[in-house]
Protein backbone atom coordinates (compact mmCIF):
# COMPACT_ATOMS: atom_id res chain seq x y z
CA UNK A 1 0.00 0.00 0.00
CA UNK A 2 1.28 3.45 -0.89
CA UNK A 3 1.52 5.64 2.19
CA UNK A 4 2.63 9.21 2.67
CA UNK A 5 5.63 7.84 4.59
CA UNK A 6 6.75 5.71 1.60
CA UNK A 7 6.38 8.62 -0.78
CA UNK A 8 8.16 11.09 1.45
CA UNK A 9 11.02 8.66 2.09
CA UNK A 10 11.50 8.36 -1.66
CA UNK A 11 11.44 12.15 -2.04
CA UNK A 12 13.95 12.51 0.78
CA UNK A 13 16.29 9.97 -0.83
CA UNK A 14 16.18 11.99 -4.04
CA UNK A 15 16.71 15.24 -2.12
CA UNK A 16 19.80 13.86 -0.35
CA UNK A 17 21.37 12.43 -3.50
CA UNK A 18 23.89 15.04 -4.59
CA UNK A 19 25.01 12.84 -7.48
CA UNK A 20 21.59 13.21 -9.13
CA UNK A 21 21.41 9.47 -9.79
CA UNK A 22 17.77 9.53 -10.83
CA UNK A 23 18.38 12.14 -13.52
CA UNK A 24 21.48 10.30 -14.70
CA UNK A 25 19.48 7.07 -15.07
CA UNK A 26 16.79 8.91 -17.00
CA UNK A 27 19.36 10.26 -19.41
CA UNK A 28 21.14 6.92 -19.84
CA UNK A 29 17.90 5.14 -20.74
CA UNK A 30 17.85 6.60 -24.28
CA UNK A 31 20.78 7.77 -26.34
CA UNK A 32 19.24 11.04 -27.56
CA UNK A 33 18.10 12.27 -24.15
CA UNK A 34 19.58 15.47 -22.76
CA UNK A 35 19.47 17.17 -19.37
CA UNK A 36 19.18 20.94 -18.98
CA UNK A 37 19.84 22.22 -15.49
CA UNK A 38 18.30 25.44 -14.24
CA UNK A 39 18.56 27.67 -11.21
CA UNK A 40 15.80 29.44 -9.26
CA UNK A 41 13.39 31.04 -9.68
CA UNK A 42 11.72 30.39 -13.03
CA UNK A 43 12.42 29.01 -16.48
CA UNK A 44 9.84 27.78 -19.01
CA UNK A 45 10.30 24.08 -18.42
CA UNK A 46 7.69 23.40 -21.09
CA UNK A 47 10.19 24.20 -23.87
CA UNK A 48 12.88 21.96 -22.35
CA UNK A 49 10.34 19.16 -21.95
CA UNK A 50 9.14 19.63 -25.54
CA UNK A 51 12.73 19.07 -26.68
CA UNK A 52 12.68 15.63 -25.00
CA UNK A 53 15.06 16.96 -22.37
CA UNK A 54 14.86 16.80 -18.59
CA UNK A 55 14.70 20.14 -16.77
CA UNK A 56 16.85 19.59 -13.68
CA UNK A 57 16.48 22.07 -10.83
CA UNK A 58 19.80 22.85 -9.15
CA UNK A 59 19.12 24.55 -5.85
CA UNK A 60 22.57 24.54 -4.33
CA UNK A 61 24.31 21.89 -2.31
CA UNK A 62 22.35 22.03 0.91
CA UNK A 63 23.90 21.26 4.28
CA UNK A 64 25.55 17.98 3.26
CA UNK A 65 28.02 19.36 0.73
CA UNK A 66 31.41 20.53 1.90
CA UNK A 67 32.23 23.59 -0.14
CA UNK A 68 35.96 24.02 -0.65
CA UNK A 69 36.67 25.07 -4.23
CA UNK A 70 33.45 27.06 -4.56
CA UNK A 71 34.51 29.45 -1.82
CA UNK A 72 37.56 30.44 -3.83
CA UNK A 73 35.32 31.88 -6.53
CA UNK A 74 33.42 34.34 -4.36
CA UNK A 75 33.96 37.15 -1.94
CA UNK A 76 32.90 36.70 1.66
CA UNK A 77 29.81 38.87 1.25
CA UNK A 78 28.16 36.69 -1.39
CA UNK A 79 25.43 34.18 -0.55
CA UNK A 80 26.15 30.44 -0.49
CA UNK A 81 24.15 29.03 -3.38
CA UNK A 82 26.63 30.05 -6.11
CA UNK A 83 29.52 28.63 -4.09
CA UNK A 84 27.89 25.23 -3.66
CA UNK A 85 26.73 25.24 -7.28
CA UNK A 86 30.32 25.81 -8.40
CA UNK A 87 31.35 23.01 -6.05
CA UNK A 88 28.78 20.68 -7.64
CA UNK A 89 30.20 21.56 -11.07
CA UNK A 90 33.87 21.26 -10.14
CA UNK A 91 33.39 17.97 -8.32
CA UNK A 92 31.75 16.54 -11.46
CA UNK A 93 28.41 15.92 -9.75
CA UNK A 94 26.86 17.78 -12.68
CA UNK A 95 29.11 16.31 -15.36
CA UNK A 96 26.12 14.74 -17.13
CA UNK A 97 24.23 17.96 -17.90
CA UNK A 98 24.07 19.28 -21.44
CA UNK A 99 23.27 22.86 -20.54
CA UNK A 100 22.27 25.16 -17.74
CA UNK A 101 19.95 28.16 -17.48
CA UNK A 102 20.49 31.07 -15.12
CA UNK A 103 17.36 33.18 -14.70
CA UNK A 104 17.57 36.91 -14.12
CA UNK A 105 16.90 36.84 -10.41
CA UNK A 106 19.92 38.78 -9.15
CA UNK A 107 23.43 39.84 -10.11
CA UNK A 108 25.02 36.79 -8.50
CA UNK A 109 23.01 34.22 -10.44
CA UNK A 110 23.48 36.21 -13.64
CA UNK A 111 27.24 36.20 -13.27
CA UNK A 112 27.27 32.53 -12.35
CA UNK A 113 26.34 31.85 -15.97
CA UNK A 114 29.69 33.37 -16.98
CA UNK A 115 31.47 31.16 -14.46
CA UNK A 116 29.97 28.05 -16.03
CA UNK A 117 30.99 29.27 -19.47
CA UNK A 118 34.57 29.47 -18.24
CA UNK A 119 34.57 26.17 -16.36
CA UNK A 120 32.63 24.10 -18.89
CA UNK A 121 32.91 25.92 -22.23
CA UNK A 122 31.73 22.84 -24.11
CA UNK A 123 28.18 22.95 -22.72
CA UNK A 124 25.32 25.36 -23.28
CA UNK A 125 25.13 28.08 -20.60
CA UNK A 126 22.44 30.71 -20.93
CA UNK A 127 21.53 33.78 -18.90
CA UNK A 128 17.76 33.61 -19.15
CA UNK A 129 16.55 37.19 -19.13
CA UNK A 130 12.96 37.71 -18.03
CA UNK A 131 11.30 41.10 -18.56
CA UNK A 132 10.69 43.50 -15.69
CA UNK A 133 8.25 45.41 -17.88
CA UNK A 134 4.91 43.60 -18.13
CA UNK A 135 3.48 45.67 -20.97
CA UNK A 136 2.64 43.32 -23.84
CA UNK A 137 4.14 45.66 -26.45
CA UNK A 138 7.38 46.15 -24.54
CA UNK A 139 8.16 43.32 -22.14
CA UNK A 140 5.91 40.97 -24.09
CA UNK A 141 7.71 41.46 -27.38
CA UNK A 142 11.05 41.14 -25.64
CA UNK A 143 9.98 37.95 -23.89
CA UNK A 144 8.63 36.26 -27.02
CA UNK A 145 12.07 36.83 -28.58
CA UNK A 146 13.78 35.47 -25.47
CA UNK A 147 11.60 32.34 -25.56
CA UNK A 148 12.34 31.84 -29.26
CA UNK A 149 16.04 32.26 -28.58
CA UNK A 150 15.85 29.56 -25.93
CA UNK A 151 13.90 27.31 -28.27
CA UNK A 152 16.51 27.70 -31.05
CA UNK A 153 19.38 27.09 -28.65
CA UNK A 154 17.78 23.89 -27.36
CA UNK A 155 17.14 22.76 -30.93
CA UNK A 156 20.86 23.12 -31.49
CA UNK A 157 21.71 21.20 -28.29
CA UNK A 158 19.29 18.39 -29.19
CA UNK A 159 19.95 18.57 -32.93
CA UNK A 160 16.25 18.39 -33.73
CA UNK A 161 13.31 20.73 -34.18
CA UNK A 162 11.02 21.61 -31.28
CA UNK A 163 7.58 21.76 -32.88
CA UNK A 164 4.65 23.89 -31.77
CA UNK A 165 2.66 20.70 -31.13
CA UNK A 166 5.38 19.36 -28.85
CA UNK A 167 5.31 22.59 -26.82
CA UNK A 168 1.51 22.50 -26.64
CA UNK A 169 1.69 18.95 -25.32
CA UNK A 170 4.27 20.01 -22.72
CA UNK A 171 2.14 22.98 -21.65
CA UNK A 172 -0.76 20.59 -21.00
CA UNK A 173 1.48 18.25 -18.99
CA UNK A 174 2.80 21.09 -16.83
CA UNK A 175 -0.68 22.57 -16.42
CA UNK A 176 -1.74 19.28 -14.87
CA UNK A 177 1.28 19.29 -12.55
CA UNK A 178 0.56 22.85 -11.41
CA UNK A 179 -3.09 21.96 -10.76
CA UNK A 180 -2.01 19.07 -8.54
CA UNK A 181 0.40 21.32 -6.67
CA UNK A 182 -2.37 23.89 -6.21
CA UNK A 183 -4.50 21.09 -4.77
CA UNK A 184 -1.72 20.12 -2.37
CA UNK A 185 -1.31 23.72 -1.20
CA UNK A 186 -5.09 24.11 -0.82
CA UNK A 187 -5.24 20.91 1.22
CA UNK A 188 -2.45 22.18 3.45
CA UNK A 189 -4.37 25.38 4.08
CA UNK A 190 -7.39 23.27 5.12
CA UNK A 191 -5.50 20.69 7.16
CA UNK A 192 -1.92 21.77 7.86
CA UNK A 193 -1.60 19.07 10.49
CA UNK A 194 -2.05 16.45 7.75
CA UNK A 195 0.41 18.05 5.30
CA UNK A 196 3.49 18.90 7.35
CA UNK A 197 5.76 21.56 5.87
CA UNK A 198 8.67 19.14 5.59
CA UNK A 199 6.56 16.78 3.51
CA UNK A 200 5.26 19.53 1.26
CA UNK A 201 8.80 20.76 0.88
CA UNK A 202 10.23 17.36 -0.09
CA UNK A 203 7.41 16.87 -2.59
CA UNK A 204 8.31 20.21 -4.16
CA UNK A 205 12.02 19.38 -4.24
CA UNK A 206 11.26 16.06 -5.97
CA UNK A 207 9.76 17.97 -8.88
CA UNK A 208 13.18 19.48 -9.55
CA UNK A 209 14.77 16.07 -10.04
CA UNK A 210 12.48 13.96 -12.19
CA UNK A 211 10.27 14.06 -15.27
CA UNK A 212 7.09 16.02 -14.69
CA UNK A 213 4.84 13.03 -15.50
CA UNK A 214 6.51 11.01 -12.75
CA UNK A 215 6.14 13.88 -10.31
CA UNK A 216 2.47 14.31 -11.11
CA UNK A 217 1.88 10.65 -10.29
CA UNK A 218 3.69 11.11 -6.98
CA UNK A 219 1.40 14.02 -6.18
CA UNK A 220 -1.70 12.00 -7.09
CA UNK A 221 -0.54 9.16 -4.83
CA UNK A 222 0.40 11.49 -2.00
CA UNK A 223 -2.89 13.40 -2.09
CA UNK A 224 -4.84 10.15 -1.99
CA UNK A 225 -2.73 8.78 0.86
CA UNK A 226 -2.81 12.06 2.82
CA UNK A 227 -6.60 12.08 2.83
CA UNK A 228 -6.52 8.83 4.78
CA UNK A 229 -4.13 10.21 7.38
CA UNK A 230 -5.51 11.34 10.68
CA UNK A 231 -2.68 13.15 12.35
CA UNK A 232 -3.30 15.01 15.61
CA UNK A 233 -4.40 18.61 15.22
CA UNK A 234 -2.40 20.93 17.44
CA UNK A 235 -3.10 24.51 18.44
CA UNK A 236 -0.20 25.71 16.35
CA UNK A 237 0.24 29.16 14.87
CA UNK A 238 -0.54 29.37 11.16
CA UNK A 239 2.29 31.16 9.40
CA UNK A 240 3.44 32.13 5.93
CA UNK A 241 7.18 31.94 5.28
CA UNK A 242 8.69 34.47 2.91
CA UNK A 243 12.16 34.86 1.41
CA UNK A 244 13.21 31.27 0.73
CA UNK A 245 12.72 31.33 -3.04
CA UNK A 246 16.34 30.90 -4.15
CA UNK A 247 18.93 29.50 -1.73
CA UNK A 248 17.01 26.84 0.11
CA UNK A 249 16.88 26.42 3.88
CA UNK A 250 18.19 23.22 5.44
CA UNK A 251 15.43 20.69 5.94
CA UNK A 252 16.14 20.88 9.66
CA UNK A 253 15.14 24.54 9.61
CA UNK A 254 11.71 23.76 8.19
CA UNK A 255 11.36 20.97 10.73
CA UNK A 256 12.36 23.40 13.48
CA UNK A 257 9.60 25.82 12.50
CA UNK A 258 7.06 23.04 12.92
CA UNK A 259 8.58 21.85 16.17
CA UNK A 260 8.43 25.39 17.52
CA UNK A 261 4.64 25.41 17.15
CA UNK A 262 4.10 26.74 13.63
CA UNK A 263 2.01 25.35 10.81
CA UNK A 264 3.43 26.61 7.52
CA UNK A 265 0.33 27.32 5.42
CA UNK A 266 2.03 29.10 2.52
CA UNK A 267 5.59 29.52 1.35
CA UNK A 268 7.77 30.64 -1.53
CA UNK A 269 10.14 27.64 -1.45
CA UNK A 270 10.05 26.77 -5.15
CA UNK A 271 8.05 29.37 -6.97
CA UNK A 272 8.55 27.69 -10.33
CA UNK A 273 6.15 24.93 -9.31
CA UNK A 274 3.32 27.46 -9.07
CA UNK A 275 4.36 29.70 -11.94
CA UNK A 276 2.20 30.85 -13.68
CA UNK A 277 -0.65 30.88 -11.23
CA UNK A 278 -3.25 29.68 -13.75
CA UNK A 279 -3.21 27.25 -16.66
CA UNK A 280 -1.26 28.31 -19.71
CA UNK A 281 -3.51 28.38 -22.78
CA UNK A 282 -2.86 25.23 -24.80
CA UNK A 283 -4.48 26.13 -28.13
CA UNK A 284 -2.84 28.71 -30.38
CA UNK A 285 0.73 29.94 -30.61
CA UNK A 286 2.49 28.20 -27.71
CA UNK A 287 5.33 30.72 -27.46
CA UNK A 288 2.90 33.62 -27.32
CA UNK A 289 0.84 31.72 -24.74
CA UNK A 290 3.87 31.14 -22.51
CA UNK A 291 4.76 34.82 -22.78
CA UNK A 292 1.19 35.96 -22.18
CA UNK A 293 0.77 33.85 -19.07
CA UNK A 294 4.12 35.12 -17.79
CA UNK A 295 3.03 38.74 -18.23
CA UNK A 296 -0.44 38.31 -16.78
CA UNK A 297 -0.18 35.48 -14.26
CA UNK A 298 3.28 35.48 -12.74
CA UNK A 299 3.37 35.32 -8.97
CA UNK A 300 4.75 38.50 -7.46
CA UNK A 301 8.17 38.03 -5.93
CA UNK A 302 11.04 39.96 -4.45
CA UNK A 303 12.96 39.41 -7.67
CA UNK A 304 10.47 41.29 -9.82
CA UNK A 305 9.65 44.95 -10.18
CA UNK A 306 6.31 46.23 -8.90
CA UNK A 307 5.21 49.11 -11.14
CA UNK A 308 2.53 50.40 -8.75
CA UNK A 309 3.69 51.60 -5.36
CA UNK A 310 0.24 51.21 -3.80
CA UNK A 311 0.38 47.49 -4.56
CA UNK A 312 3.85 46.94 -3.17
CA UNK A 313 3.81 44.08 -0.69
CA UNK A 314 0.13 43.34 -1.07
CA UNK A 315 0.94 39.93 -2.50
CA UNK A 316 2.17 38.89 0.91
CA UNK A 317 -0.87 40.35 2.66
CA UNK A 318 -3.04 38.42 0.18
CA UNK A 319 -1.11 35.21 0.87
CA UNK A 320 -1.79 35.66 4.58
CA UNK A 321 -5.49 36.33 4.02
CA UNK A 322 -6.01 33.48 1.56
CA UNK A 323 -4.31 30.94 3.80
CA UNK A 324 -5.91 32.27 7.01
CA UNK A 325 -2.44 32.72 8.43
CA UNK A 326 -1.82 34.51 11.70
CA UNK A 327 1.64 35.83 10.96
CA UNK A 328 4.63 35.90 8.67
CA UNK A 329 8.14 34.61 9.22
CA UNK A 330 10.69 36.34 7.00
CA UNK A 331 13.46 33.83 6.50
CA UNK A 332 15.99 34.88 3.91
CA UNK A 333 19.45 33.65 3.01
CA UNK A 334 22.28 35.85 4.21
CA UNK A 335 23.38 38.34 1.54
CA UNK A 336 20.26 37.75 -0.57
CA UNK A 337 19.71 41.12 -2.24
CA UNK A 338 16.20 40.46 -3.61
CA UNK A 339 14.75 39.14 -0.37
CA UNK A 340 16.53 41.49 2.03
CA UNK A 341 16.05 44.70 0.05
CA UNK A 342 12.37 43.86 -0.39
CA UNK A 343 11.80 43.13 3.28
CA UNK A 344 11.38 46.70 4.64
CA UNK A 345 8.63 47.32 2.08
CA UNK A 346 6.92 44.04 2.88
CA UNK A 347 7.13 44.79 6.59
CA UNK A 348 5.43 48.14 6.02
CA UNK A 349 2.64 46.40 4.10
CA UNK A 350 2.20 43.93 6.97
CA UNK A 351 2.24 46.74 9.54
CA UNK A 352 -0.52 48.53 7.64
CA UNK A 353 -2.56 45.32 7.60
CA UNK A 354 -1.77 44.67 11.30
CA UNK A 355 -0.18 41.31 10.54
CA UNK A 356 2.56 40.25 12.97
CA UNK A 357 5.92 39.11 11.68
CA UNK A 358 9.40 38.15 12.72
CA UNK A 359 12.59 37.80 10.70
CA UNK A 360 15.81 35.84 10.65
CA UNK A 361 18.44 34.77 8.17
CA UNK A 362 19.98 31.44 7.30
CA UNK A 363 22.40 29.79 4.92
CA UNK A 364 21.76 26.51 3.17
CA UNK A 365 24.31 24.91 5.51
CA UNK A 366 23.13 26.54 8.74
CA UNK A 367 23.62 24.05 11.54
CA UNK A 368 22.38 25.65 14.73
CA UNK A 369 18.61 25.47 14.81
CA UNK A 370 18.03 26.17 18.49
CA UNK A 371 18.04 30.00 18.11
CA UNK A 372 15.61 29.72 15.20
CA UNK A 373 13.38 27.38 17.15
CA UNK A 374 13.38 29.79 20.09
CA UNK A 375 12.60 32.78 17.91
CA UNK A 376 9.85 31.05 15.94
CA UNK A 377 8.47 29.51 19.13
CA UNK A 378 8.35 32.86 20.91
CA UNK A 379 6.68 34.38 17.86
CA UNK A 380 4.06 31.60 17.80
CA UNK A 381 3.47 31.93 21.54
CA UNK A 382 3.09 35.69 21.28
CA UNK A 383 0.26 35.14 18.81
CA UNK A 384 -1.41 32.07 20.34
CA UNK A 385 -1.12 33.09 23.99
CA UNK A 386 -1.14 36.87 23.93
CA UNK A 387 -2.45 37.86 20.52
CA UNK A 388 -5.90 39.29 19.83
CA UNK A 389 -7.29 35.83 19.08
CA UNK A 390 -5.84 34.22 22.23
Amino acid sequence: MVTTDNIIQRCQDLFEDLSFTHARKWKDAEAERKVIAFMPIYVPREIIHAANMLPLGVLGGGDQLEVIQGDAYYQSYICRIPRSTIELILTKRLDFIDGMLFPSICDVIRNLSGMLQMIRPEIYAHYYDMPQNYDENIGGEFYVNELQELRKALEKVGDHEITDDAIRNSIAVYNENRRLIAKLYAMRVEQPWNIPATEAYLLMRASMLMPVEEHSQILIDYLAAAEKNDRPRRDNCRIVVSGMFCEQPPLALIKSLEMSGCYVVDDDFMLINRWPTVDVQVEGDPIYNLSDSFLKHSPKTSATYEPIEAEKGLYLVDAVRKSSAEGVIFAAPSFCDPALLERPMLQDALNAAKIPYTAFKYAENSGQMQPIREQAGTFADSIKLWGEQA
Partner: protein
Amino acid sequence: MNTAVASKKTDPRDAIKDNSMLLQKEMIANNFKKLANVKESDSKVVYTFVPGNINELLMCFNLVGNYPEINSLQSGMRKKTGPYIMEAERNGHSEDVCTYVKSDIGMMRKGNIAPTGDPLPEPDVLLLSYTGCFTFLKWFELLRHEYNC
Protein backbone atom coordinates in the same frame (compact mmCIF):
# COMPACT_ATOMS: atom_id res chain seq x y z
CA MET B 1 70.51 43.90 4.75
CA ASN B 2 68.95 47.12 5.88
CA THR B 3 65.98 48.54 4.14
CA ALA B 4 65.51 52.27 4.12
CA VAL B 5 61.93 53.34 4.75
CA ALA B 6 60.84 56.81 3.80
CA SER B 7 59.68 58.51 6.95
CA LYS B 8 58.84 61.92 5.64
CA LYS B 9 55.13 62.59 5.95
CA THR B 10 53.49 63.84 2.80
CA ASP B 11 50.36 65.91 2.43
CA PRO B 12 47.81 64.06 0.21
CA ARG B 13 46.94 67.42 -1.32
CA ASP B 14 50.44 67.56 -2.79
CA ALA B 15 49.77 64.49 -4.97
CA ILE B 16 49.50 65.18 -8.67
CA LYS B 17 45.93 64.92 -9.92
CA ASP B 18 44.98 64.26 -13.52
CA ASN B 19 42.94 66.92 -15.24
CA SER B 20 40.06 64.45 -15.49
CA MET B 21 40.10 64.05 -11.69
CA LEU B 22 39.97 67.79 -11.19
CA LEU B 23 37.18 68.15 -13.73
CA GLN B 24 35.17 65.36 -12.13
CA LYS B 25 35.54 67.00 -8.72
CA GLU B 26 34.41 70.32 -10.14
CA MET B 27 31.41 68.76 -11.92
CA ILE B 28 30.22 66.98 -8.77
CA ALA B 29 30.65 70.13 -6.67
CA ASN B 30 28.73 72.15 -9.28
CA ASN B 31 25.92 69.62 -9.30
CA PHE B 32 25.55 69.84 -5.53
CA LYS B 33 25.46 73.65 -5.89
CA LYS B 34 22.75 73.37 -8.54
CA LEU B 35 20.72 71.13 -6.25
CA ALA B 36 21.14 73.55 -3.34
CA ASN B 37 19.98 76.49 -5.51
CA VAL B 38 17.21 74.70 -7.34
CA LYS B 39 14.46 76.99 -6.05
CA GLU B 40 16.29 80.09 -7.22
CA SER B 41 16.95 78.60 -10.65
CA ASP B 42 13.34 77.43 -11.03
CA SER B 43 14.52 73.96 -12.03
CA LYS B 44 12.93 70.64 -11.23
CA VAL B 45 14.74 67.77 -9.56
CA VAL B 46 15.07 64.19 -10.74
CA TYR B 47 16.47 61.41 -8.56
CA THR B 48 18.07 58.86 -10.87
CA PHE B 49 21.11 56.62 -10.96
CA VAL B 50 24.46 57.09 -12.65
CA PRO B 51 24.73 53.99 -14.88
CA GLY B 52 22.39 53.90 -17.86
CA ASN B 53 20.98 57.35 -17.20
CA ILE B 54 19.55 59.65 -19.86
CA ASN B 55 21.07 62.92 -18.71
CA GLU B 56 21.00 64.58 -22.13
CA LEU B 57 17.22 64.20 -22.26
CA LEU B 58 16.71 65.25 -18.65
CA MET B 59 18.74 68.42 -19.17
CA CYS B 60 16.40 69.40 -22.02
CA PHE B 61 13.58 69.56 -19.47
CA ASN B 62 15.59 71.69 -17.06
CA LEU B 63 15.81 68.77 -14.62
CA VAL B 64 18.72 68.72 -12.20
CA GLY B 65 19.88 65.23 -11.33
CA ASN B 66 20.38 63.93 -7.82
CA TYR B 67 22.33 60.68 -7.83
CA PRO B 68 21.87 58.51 -4.75
CA GLU B 69 25.00 56.45 -5.25
CA ILE B 70 27.12 59.62 -5.58
CA ASN B 71 25.60 60.87 -2.33
CA SER B 72 26.53 57.59 -0.63
CA LEU B 73 30.05 57.67 -2.01
CA GLN B 74 30.57 61.30 -1.05
CA SER B 75 29.13 60.66 2.41
CA GLY B 76 31.46 57.69 2.75
CA MET B 77 34.52 59.76 1.84
CA ARG B 78 33.49 62.33 4.43
CA LYS B 79 32.99 59.58 7.06
CA LYS B 80 29.32 60.40 7.48
CA THR B 81 27.71 57.07 6.58
CA GLY B 82 27.86 55.25 9.93
CA PRO B 83 24.78 56.94 11.48
CA TYR B 84 22.94 56.78 8.14
CA ILE B 85 23.43 53.02 7.84
CA MET B 86 22.34 52.49 11.44
CA GLU B 87 19.24 54.59 10.79
CA ALA B 88 18.30 52.40 7.81
CA GLU B 89 18.93 49.22 9.77
CA ARG B 90 16.71 50.51 12.58
CA ASN B 91 13.99 50.71 9.95
CA GLY B 92 14.18 47.11 8.85
CA HIS B 93 17.10 47.03 6.45
CA SER B 94 19.35 44.03 6.81
CA GLU B 95 22.94 44.40 7.94
CA ASP B 96 24.23 42.37 5.00
CA VAL B 97 22.94 44.21 1.97
CA CYS B 98 24.46 47.05 -0.06
CA THR B 99 25.51 49.90 2.23
CA TYR B 100 25.15 52.39 -0.62
CA VAL B 101 21.42 51.80 -0.39
CA LYS B 102 21.34 52.07 3.38
CA SER B 103 23.53 55.17 3.46
CA ASP B 104 21.17 56.87 1.02
CA ILE B 105 17.97 55.81 2.78
CA GLY B 106 19.44 56.73 6.17
CA MET B 107 20.56 60.13 4.88
CA MET B 108 17.03 60.85 3.65
CA ARG B 109 15.50 59.81 6.93
CA LYS B 110 17.90 61.99 8.87
CA GLY B 111 16.91 65.18 7.04
CA ASN B 112 18.29 64.61 3.54
CA ILE B 113 21.36 66.76 4.01
CA ALA B 114 23.82 66.40 1.14
CA PRO B 115 27.39 65.32 1.84
CA THR B 116 28.38 68.96 1.25
CA GLY B 117 26.15 70.04 4.15
CA ASP B 118 23.44 71.66 2.03
CA PRO B 119 19.85 70.41 2.23
CA LEU B 120 18.88 68.30 -0.77
CA PRO B 121 15.63 69.26 -2.52
CA GLU B 122 12.75 66.79 -2.65
CA PRO B 123 12.39 65.01 -5.99
CA ASP B 124 9.90 66.08 -8.64
CA VAL B 125 10.64 62.92 -10.62
CA LEU B 126 12.00 59.52 -9.66
CA LEU B 127 13.51 57.81 -12.67
CA LEU B 128 14.77 54.24 -12.97
CA SER B 129 16.54 53.36 -16.19
CA TYR B 130 17.97 49.94 -16.89
CA THR B 131 21.26 49.74 -15.12
CA GLY B 132 22.44 46.18 -15.36
CA CYS B 133 22.60 45.89 -11.57
CA PHE B 134 19.67 44.29 -9.80
CA THR B 135 20.21 46.31 -6.63
CA PHE B 136 19.29 49.54 -8.43
CA LEU B 137 15.86 48.15 -9.22
CA LYS B 138 15.13 47.52 -5.54
CA TRP B 139 16.82 50.78 -4.54
CA PHE B 140 14.42 52.65 -6.81
CA GLU B 141 11.44 50.82 -5.28
CA LEU B 142 12.73 51.77 -1.84
CA LEU B 143 13.05 55.45 -2.86
CA ARG B 144 9.54 55.38 -4.29
CA HIS B 145 8.35 53.76 -1.07
CA GLU B 146 9.98 56.51 1.01
CA TYR B 147 8.24 59.21 -1.05
CA ASN B 148 5.03 57.18 -1.38
CA CYS B 149 4.61 58.05 -5.03
